[in-house]
């Protein structure tokens, strides 16, 4: 733990409030009888797709292609997860199995 208990609690309080704010805002901002601005509606449909792509990159941000294992275990695991997921459509299998497979790779192979 690199944060003090107090720092961690403050940080989590802000995260909790921010999370609630994102969920509650539409109810205050867009009363049912008012029309939602078209651009907001467009962002609402489009951004979830872009954001998940961003989060995949975020998860991989500390992977170095030029040192250590060169991102090879990550690449292998991600290909395996994609194939299993396209094949079986089972989120538990893909995420659970994929994580265990990656753990095996970094603990025993690389």
């Amino acid at each position: 733990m690199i944060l003090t208990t107090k720092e961690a609690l403050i940080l989590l309080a802000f995260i909790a409030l921010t999370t609630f704010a994102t969920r509650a805002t539409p109810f205050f901002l867009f009363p049912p009888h008012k029309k939602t601005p078209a651009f907001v509606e467009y962002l609402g449909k489009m951004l979830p797709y872009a954001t998940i792509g961003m989060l995949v990159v975020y998860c991989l941000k500390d992977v170095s292609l030029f040192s250590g294992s060169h991102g090879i275990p990550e690449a292998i695991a991600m290909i395996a997860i994609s194939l299993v997921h396209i094949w079986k459509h089972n989120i538990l299998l893909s995420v659970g199995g994929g994580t265990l497979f990656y753990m095996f790779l970094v603990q025993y192979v690389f």
Partner: protein
Amino acid sequence: MKRNALKVAWIHTVPVMMGYLFLGMAFGILLSTKGYGVFWAFIMSLFIYAGSGQFVAITLLTSPFDIVGAVFITLMVNLRHLFYGLSLLEPFKRAGKKKYYMMFTLTDETYSLLCSAKPPKGVDEGWFYFFIGFLDHLYWIGSCALGNLLRTAVPFNSKGIDFVMTALFLVIFIDQWKDSKTHIPQFIGVGASVLCLIVFGASRFLLPAMVLILLLSATFRNRLEAKFQ
């Protein structure tokens, strides 16, 4: 009235219970490997109650103290929630005071249930929705705490378990890829992020990436809007 609503609501929540059991336990285990015990798993799942958000919160707990950065990335990760409410404005309005708690419980999973599950005739819609959110919340708290306790009781080599977050987002990415008519948003998300990662580096790429994503979204609006009708 309440008992009736609970009786018909819980059936709908079973698939979410299975998913949460797995994801929540993974969260609890990962949190435990960073030195945070069950107290932390409990308060985070009780007060934050977000899958992706809590995983990101773990990385924030293990980085230097930075409130602004934490608020920003939490906003980014949960931005999609801004739009969940749009389709639930009417039913929540009729739910009275408990609607505030119901807003709080609007995770991806709960939202998807509320979109698909409809209360049978004679069952109060407000309580029906309330109990779906409430039960999901209980499953989540239980799973996060359980995973954390399990890891403390049975220590094991957890190297690489952080990858559960990557796997989760990758799987969501694939599902979205399959059900969308255009892949431009995904290219924008990944492309802008990779570009900013190269230019700004791992610790500061997120803000510029988000700005670039918004700019590109505005640029491609005419082409994309028709596809999302």
